[in-house]
């Protein structure tokens, strides 16, 4: 495939695959008010990077394992109710990031391009990376579709969902694992610091134009794709870093969604 030889086309393909995945997932992140939670999981990815270097493990696998472990640890700590959730998140978020940085500094035998991990290097994606993004993305979306009802009902009210025969807790657990998987996949593309932006901003931009959760999930994907395309072309034109450019493009779309348009909100007027 000659086309795939071009680094820009590879970047576009990887970015679009990722944006399609993060759209619906990001909707749940904002509905469940888990933005900071996602951030914490993403920050813990650097600990995963350090561990993979130390133990010579596959990078993506160790990032996934660390992110998943952190999310489960949070679940356990939240049950104990010793500290508030946001304090716990702050502690875990920054300590895992710091431990990762310290560990990397100790490993003087490795030369690590930290910036690539923190902010991504989408222009360096390989064909294998594209395959992983699309394969992983299809898996995540399929799992999300399968879990849609219990996850959505559990988001509205977990007790209601459980009383009426669904299993919201199980759905929530699988959702955490899917988040960890997406973070492992996305790290190389937008970097640890910006993954949550790709989850949250397209979903937030989609809110205004959606009448149902399903429409919002699809629209979030579409807006995410637009942000990736716009950001990458912008980065090419103005020679700006690609990951941050994608986030800036997403932000522009979000701000555009706030503009007052001629028509009223899609739903009925305020009572």
């Amino acid at each position, binding site marked *: 495939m000659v086309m795939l030889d071009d680094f820009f086309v590879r970047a576009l393909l990887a970015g679009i695959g990722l944006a399609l995945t993060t759209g619906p997932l990001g909707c749940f992140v904002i*509905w469940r008010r888990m933005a900071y939670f996602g951030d914490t999981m993403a920050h813990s990815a650097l600990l995963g990077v350090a561990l993979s270097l130390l133990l010579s493990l596959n990078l993506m696998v160790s990032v996934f394992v660390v992110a998943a472990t952190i999310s489960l640890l949070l679940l356990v700590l939240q049950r104990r109710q010793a500290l508030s959730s946001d304090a716990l998140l702050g502690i875990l978020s920054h300590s895992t990031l710091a431990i990762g940085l310290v560990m990397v500094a100790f490993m003087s035998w490795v030369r690590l391009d930290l910036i690539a991990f923190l902010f991504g290097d989408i222009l360096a994606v390989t064909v294998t990376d594209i395959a992983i993004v699309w394969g992983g993305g299809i898996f995540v979306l399929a799992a999300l579709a399968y879990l849609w009802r219990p996850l959505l009902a559990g*988001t*509205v*009210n977990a007790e209601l*969902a459980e*009383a009426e025969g669904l299993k919201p807790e199980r759905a929530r657990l699988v959702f955490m694992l899917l988040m960890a998987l997406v973070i492992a996949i996305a790290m190389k593309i937008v970097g640890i610091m910006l993954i949550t932006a790709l989850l949250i901003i397209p979903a937030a931009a989609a809110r205004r134009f959606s*009448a149902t959760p399903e429409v*919002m999930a699809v629209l979030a994907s579409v807006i995410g794709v637009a942000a990736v395309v716009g950001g990458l072309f912008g980065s090419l034109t103005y020679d700006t870093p690609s990951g941050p450019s994608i986030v800036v493009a997403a932000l522009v779309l979000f701000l555009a969604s706030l503009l007052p348009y001629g028509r009223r909100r899609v*739903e009925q007027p305020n009572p």
Partner: protein
Amino acid sequence: MLPPENLNERPLVSLSDAGVFRNGRWLVRGVDFSVRRGEIVTLIGPNGSGKSTSAKMAIGVLSPDEGKVERQPGFRVGYVPQKLSVDWTMPLTVRRLMTLTGSLSDNDIVAALESVGIAHLAGAEVQHLSGGEFQRALLARAIARKPDLLVLDEPVQGVDFAGEIALYNLITSIRNRTGCGILLISHDLHVVMAETDTVICLNGHVCCRGTPAAVSQSPEYMRLFGATAGQTLAVYSHDHDHTHLPDGRVRHADGSVTDHCFPGDGHHHEAEHEGEPHSHHGHTHEHDHVHDHGRAAPTPTGADRNKGHGHA
């Protein structure tokens, strides 16, 4: 109120000596009750008395730390939780809310919304509903599922007085029509009790139980709700030959629909009811006319509320 054969049927759910222990204290202990098909069981009690906790044990959301909860396998629950808020970031229309936990046919959705009087709000976002409208939507969602057991935790909170009676009538009619069991939690004793088969009065434990009339007379109940409660909280047991429509109008037995009634139309009981407030336990009267409860000034005493018309 129950056909006798129902009493022999196995309960949908039964709690025996069940209790929940959380954060170093018992939320509720020694809870003992069962709900059968076609039965309305009402849990009453002050705030924090364990009503919601008991209901959650019954539907399996909380597992008991002591005692036992037995549930018939595979029955369908419709649940209206006490508190439910939908985050504004989630776009959710009333219609979409209806199918939150399972698919429904369009007919069932429309019929359920009509029965609670909010069919016109099907396309509205739930965040834009008033408290009373949202409660109606939640109730519609629960009944549209055609449940075997309907669990209603303060189902009429925020609903106006006229609507409250209409909704309680609706709940009774659902029981009569579908034969489902109903577990009702309420602090509002005036209207609920007469249609209830069993009232369980909770205060961290079961303090009394029985038929509505028996409970409202029991010393434990009076202690909990105050000495005057027994006199002022009359049992609502009208024989209805008319139906209160959700929009406040009334349909008569002969099928006519009217807006209001006025004093002197021959159907009021001024003479009979004048004088000091008095108890109406077991009081039954037949109507062949309209009650527009919304127009009657709600008065603080249950006895007046009970009559609810034409005395202003």
